[in-house]
C-alpha cells in the first residue's frame, strides 16, 4: 500500500482556509504555519543534530527585525527583504555558532542562551533602529495587489492574500528542510548525534557539520521571523526573548523531536493552547513550564511519540 501523503493533504486543506471567510481562522492558520516553520528549523538542531539550543528565538527576532526594517525604513520590496532576513539569521547563527559548538553540550546550552540574551538586549535598547521597548510598529504588508486580479482570489482580504503568500513560502521552506533532513548531510548529523567520537573517527569534521546545521537552522528561523513580523504588523523585542526560545523548544518536544513533522504538530497544539490560556490568564509561562514538566516525566516522546508507541 502506498503511503498517504499526509503533509501535502494538510497543506492543501490549509490553503482552503481563507475561503471559509473567517478572519479568525485565517489569523490562526497563518500563525500556526509560521510557528511550525520556526519549530521545524529548531528541530534540525534538536532532533537531527542533537544540539539543544536555548536561544533559537534570537534568529527569529533577527529575521523579523531585518525584514521589517528593510521594508518600512528603506522601502525594500518584500522578496528581497525576506531573503535578506534569512541571510541575516544565517549570518548571526554562523557567528554565534562558531563559539557555541566549540565545546560540550553543557557549554552549548549556556552559550546559546547568553548570545540570545544579548540579541534581545540590543533589540530592546537600540531605539534609533529597532524602536526599542515600544517595538517596531506599522510594518507594511507586501504589495499584493496583483493577487486581487487573479481569478478566485479577488474577493479575499489582504490578510488572506498574505496567508497564501505565507503558505507558498513556508511550503518551499518545509520542502527544503525535509530535503536537508533526508540528504546525506542530514544523515551525517544524525550519526554525529548518536556518536560524535565515532563520527570523528571515520573522518567527519564534527564541528563543521554542527556549525552548518546551526547556520541553516538560523536561516529558516530568520525566514519564519520575517513572515511573523509582517503577520503581526509589528516586531517587538519579545520576539528574541528567552521566553520565546522556551516556547519553540517546548513546541518541538511537545510534538516529538523524533519525527520530521512532530514539531509542526507541537506548534499547532501550543498555538491553540495559548489562545485558550491567554483568554483566561496572563500566566502563560506558568502553563509552559507545567507542560514541559509533564512532557519530561510523563510523555517524553511528545504527541508523535504516543502515535509511534501505539503502532508498535
Amino acid at each position, binding site marked *: 500500500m502506498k503511503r498517504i501523503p499526509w503533509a501535502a493533504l494538510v497543506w492543501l486543506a490549509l490553503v482552503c482556509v481563507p475561503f471559509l471567510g473567517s478572519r479568525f481562522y485565517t489569523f490562526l492558520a497563518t500563525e500556526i504555519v509560521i510557528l511550525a516553520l520556526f519549530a521545524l528549523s529548531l528541530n534540525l538542531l534538536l532532533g537531527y543534530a542533537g544540539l539543544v539550543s*536555548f536561544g533559537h528565538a534570537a534568529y527569529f527576532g533577527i529575521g523579523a527585525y531585518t525584514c521589517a526594517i528593510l521594508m518600512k525604513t528603506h522601502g525594500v520590496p518584500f522578496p528581497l527583504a525576506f531573503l535578506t532576513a534569512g541571510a541575516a539569521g544565517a549570518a548571526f547563527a554562523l557567528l554565534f555558532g562558531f563559539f557555541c559548538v566549540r565545546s560540550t553540550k*553543557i*557549554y552549548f546550552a*549556556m*552559550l546559546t*542562551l547568553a548570545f540570545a540574551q544579548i540579541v534581545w538586549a540590543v533589540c530592546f535598547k537600540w531605539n534609533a533602529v529597532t524602536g526599542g521597548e515600544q517595538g517596531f510598529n506599522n510594518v507594511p504588508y507586501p504589495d499584493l495587489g496583483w493577487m486581487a486580479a487573479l481569478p478566485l482570489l479577488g474577493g479575499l482580504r489582504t490578510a488572506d492574500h498574505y496567508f497564501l503568500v505565507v503558505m507558498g513560502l513556508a511550503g518551499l521552506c518545509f520542502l527544503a528542510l525535509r530535503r536537508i533532513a533526508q540528504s546525506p548531510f542530514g544523515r551525517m548529523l544524525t550519526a554525529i548525534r548518536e556518536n560524535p567520537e565515532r563520527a570523528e573517527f571515520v573522518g567527519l569534521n564534527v564541528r563543521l557539520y554542527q556549525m552548518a546545521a546551526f547556520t541553516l537552522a538560523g536561516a529558516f528561523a530568520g525566514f519564519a521571523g520575517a513572515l511573523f513580523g509582517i503577520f503581526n504588523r509589528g516586531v517587538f523585542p519579545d520576539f528574541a526573548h528567552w521566553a520565546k526560545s*522556551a516556547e519553540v523548544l517546548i513546541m518541538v518536544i511537545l510534538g516529538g523531536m523524533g519525527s520530521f513533522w512532530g514539531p509542526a504538530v507541537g506548534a499547532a497544539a501550543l498555538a491553540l493552547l495559548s489562545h485558550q490560556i491567554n483568554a483566561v490568564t496572563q500566566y502563560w*509561562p*506558568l502553563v509552559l513550564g507545567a507542560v514541559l514538566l509533564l512532557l*519530561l516525566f510523563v510523555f517524553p516522546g511528545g504527541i508523535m511519540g504516543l502515535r509511534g508507541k501505539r503502532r508498535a
Partner: protein
Amino acid sequence: MLEPSFLVGQALSGLTAAMFLFIVASGLSLVFGVLRVLNFAHGSFYMLGAYLSWQMTQWIGAASGSFWLAALAAAAGVALLGGVIERLLLRYLYGKEDLYQLLLTYALVLLLGDAAKLLWGTQQKAMPRPAGLTGSFEIAGAVVPHYNFFIIVLGPLLAAGCWLLLSRTGIGRMIRAAAYDREMLAALGANVGRLYTLMFMAGAFLAGLGGALVTPVRSIVPGMDVDIIVEAFIVVVIGGLGSFWGTFLGALIFGQVLAFGILILPGFSIFAVFALMAVVLIVRPAGLLGRPLS
C-alpha cells in the same frame, strides 16, 4: 585625561559587582562540579532570595538586625526549596541524558518566574541598606558606600571559607570525591544521594544569599532571574565551569571589564564582556582555570 578618582570609583564598583556575581556563580559552579547538572533555575533561586528577604523585612519590621535575619532566613528558605526540588524532581533524571536535566531546570525557570509574579506582582521593590552600613567613605576621591565595602570584604571571606571547607574537612573530601567518581564513592559506602541533596541545597543557599544581599543595591524586579543567570554563565565560561577559583577569577574579570567597558562603549559595556568571553573561548575553550570536560 581621566581623573584618578573616577578610575578608583569604577574599579571599586566593578569589584562590588564581581563579588555579588561570585556569590551566585560559585553555587552554580559547585553544583555542576558535583552533580554534573547545569542549573538554569539558579537565577530563579537568586530572585526568590531577593523577594523572600523583602517579604521577611515586611513581616519583621525595621528592627535592628532585621536585614541580616531576613537575608539568612531567605537564603535558608531557598535552600529548603532547592532540597525539595532535588528530592522530588531532579533525582529521577540523574540516569538520563543531560537534555532532561537541562529541560527540568529550564521548566523551573518558567514556573518560578511566574510564581514570583503571582505572589509579589510586577511592581519593582527596593530595600534600604542595613542599619550601620548606610554611610560611605572616600578612597582617593572616590565615594565608597560602607555596604559595598562590606560586600567586597565578604566575597573573598566566603571564597576562603568554601575553599577551606572543600580542602580541609571530611565533608569537603566527600564532595571532591563525588565530583571525581560518583560510583566509586557510593561503592565505598558513602551516601551519595544525601550528598547530592546537600550540595544542591548549598548551591541554592548561595544563590538565595546573593539575591538577598543584592537588594539594597539593585531593585527587585521580575526578570532579574534571567539577567543574573546569563551573567553567571559568562562568569563560569570565562573562569571554567566546575572550577572554584576559576569562578572567582571569572567574576573579578567580569566586574572590571563591565566597569571599564563604558569607556569604550557607553551604555553597551556588556558587549565588552561578551567580546572577552569570545576571546577566552577561542584561546582556552574550557575556561581560564577549567579542565576540558569529558
